[in-house]
């Protein structure tokens, strides 16, 4: 136990926690949106994120971006990777919806079934990168950790005076990127007409259709938006950690879902709050003790929060429970 380390490095740990939490938060959006509208835990969402990281690798490889490329290349490659990852993740999310959920919806299947097809889809996607593609294309696919070139090299941009905390370009990108995306999404859902449609379907699909909301479109939109956010998360993740792996989604997905619940599932701002909170708690606790208990910290915090606030920190919002 080393509380001194936590206190003395509080600034540093907070920055680390926010960085980690930003990624959780972005991925959490996908869970929260789908849950809000369909009351469904989309288990395949972690793999939507995973596909995004591979897409980044694919783009870098295709255009030959490596660490040490020129500035134009760095910006171009990063932007291209961002767009590609958003598209790929959104596409994957949509495909999951089509293949695993829509047929069930048409048949009016109970909620548990969606859970199982989601788990099935998740396994399939993991195996596609861990096994299927390896058989056809060989490396880098397979069950190994893969290096992604650090196109955007980590550099200290400025040092916060007083606390002497070095802030790097990648961290700025992650934190700012995550927050901007969240705000944009939040504004979209709460302000735009389509966003209102999303909330209406969340609360009462039948009546929503009587108001002229196309339910199928809304559901697709939700998967696409959630997927795109996971794509953004994927790019930011690779920028920070420079790796991917066939099963990389699992832990992040688990944490992101925890974050979504922590913040109040179905609530977009809740995802942000939950993600950041979880990231910070994990880092603080790991600083005091060590990282081998990380999941325990996360879940203990979850239980404690839910005991006092049964619907998460900010409560539910998209699909508020019927009173």
């Amino acid at each position, binding site marked *: 136990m080393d509380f001194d380390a936590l206190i003395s490095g509080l600034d540093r740990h907070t920055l680390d926690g926010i960085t980690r939490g930003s990624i959780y938060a972005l991925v959490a959006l996908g869970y929260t949106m789908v849950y809000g509208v369909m009351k469904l835990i989309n288990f395949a969402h972690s793999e939507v994120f995973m596909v995004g990281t591979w897409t980044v690798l694919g783009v870098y490889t295709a255009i030959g971006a490596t660490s040490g490329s020129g500035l134009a290349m760095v910006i171009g490659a990063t932007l291209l990777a961002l767009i590609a990852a958003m598209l790929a993740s959104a596409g994957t999310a949509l495909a999951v919806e089509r293949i695993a959920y829509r047929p069930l919806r048409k048949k009016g299947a109970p909620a548990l079934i969606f859970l199982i097809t989601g788990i099935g889809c998740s396994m399939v996607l993991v195996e596609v990168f861990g096994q299927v593609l390896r058989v056809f294309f060989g490396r880098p696919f397979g069950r190994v*950790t893969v290096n992604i070139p650090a196109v955007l090299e980590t550099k200290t941009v400025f040092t916060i005076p007083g606390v002497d905390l070095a802030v790097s370009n990648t961290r700025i990108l992650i934190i700012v990127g995550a927050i901007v995306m969240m705000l944009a999404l939040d504004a979209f859902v709460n302000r735009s007409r389509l966003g209102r449609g999303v909330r209406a379907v969340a609360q009462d699909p039948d009546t929503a259709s009587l108001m002229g909301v196309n339910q199928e479109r809304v559901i697709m939109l939700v998967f696409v938006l959630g997927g795109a956010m996971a794509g953004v998360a994927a790019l930011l993740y690779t920028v920070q950690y420079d*790796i991917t792996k066939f*099963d990389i989604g699992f832990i992040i997905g688990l944490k992101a879902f925890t974050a979504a619940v922590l913040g109040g599932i179905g609530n977009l701002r809740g995802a942000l709050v939950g993600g950041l909170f979880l990231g910070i708690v994990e880092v603080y606790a790991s600083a005091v003790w*060590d*990282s*081998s208990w990380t999941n325990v910290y996360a879940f203990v915090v979850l239980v404690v929060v839910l005991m006092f606030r049964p619907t998460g920190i900010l409560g539910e919002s998209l699909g508020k429970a019927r009173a």
Partner: protein
Amino acid sequence: ACGTTDTGGGSSGGGDEGGDCNFKIAAMGALSGPNASIVVPSVDGAQLALDQWDGGDCTVEMERFDTEGDPAKATPVATQIAGDESFIGVIGGAFSGETRATKTIYQDGGIPMISQSATATDLTQEDPVEVFHRLVPYDDYQGAAIAKYLTDEVGATKVFVIDNAEAYGEPLADRVEETLGDAMIQRDKTEVGQTDFAPTISKIESAQPDAIMYGGYIAEAAPLLKQIRDAGIDVPFIGGDGLYGADFGNAVGEAGEGAVVMCPCAPIDESSTFAADFEEAYGGAPGAYAAEGYDAMTVFLKGLEDGARDRAAMQEFVTGYTGDGLSKSIAFDENGDVPQDQVSYWAYKNTGGTLQPEVEVKPAE
């Protein structure tokens, strides 16, 4: 129209006294799943030894049993092998966990095992069974060797030791810590599947070590090392045999330049054709513990040549075996371990993405 099948289970098999020589050897390990890449080469190595063998009137087959490295999946496999008398030896288990879970089954079945890579100390030191033998030293020695490398070769006086809290990494790091004594300044634990090591990095930063040791596998070592280098920490990084393999270089990329992997495995003897043969048969350089796999098979084959025709005879033969192998000269002590003086530890340096032998280390004792 109803027939019955012969599924072994007792009387069948080829072990008739002095008669024909028809046997099977089982190789058990994670042939699928995330860890397959550190197991398959050794099983391939065993197969190569069998292929190169001129068995005379003996026909021997090797059967591969996939356990995914999971003890629960390994037990039915072991029961099957132990119950089928046509198996005369087992190569494996590749991992310590599955070995721990199955060695009593093999003991009950009286079938000798030779493990090519299970290094956990307790397998032979705490509750040894007669049938278990291994061609690798146990982690205590490996840990000591790593510590020795750190102090003698690197000259480190402030080592930061990290492990992955798992059955392989933790005891290894424990042993390193023990041997280093005061030369270790701080210890930290991570978790399998972790990719963000920020808390560990900040601990390293404030500890200001002159070397870092990691006990764990490639999947976590790669991001850990990258983040260490990203944070501008340039001190030497050294890991155990869990990092041994081409995948390490691939996964860590440029950040891995100069990282050191310790392995109780000598570089393949230049004069032997093993490397070339292996490459020809499997289309790649011999990977982790390929030579040990080859040696394990060779011991069993020698036993058959020697006239061992049942498990008891084979067990007796293996226990008393001495001979030169590819990886080391082989003999087993009463616990089933190869004698310490036969083992050579090598430090391999990651240069340009591949592991190059750097220096041999002899642990103290």
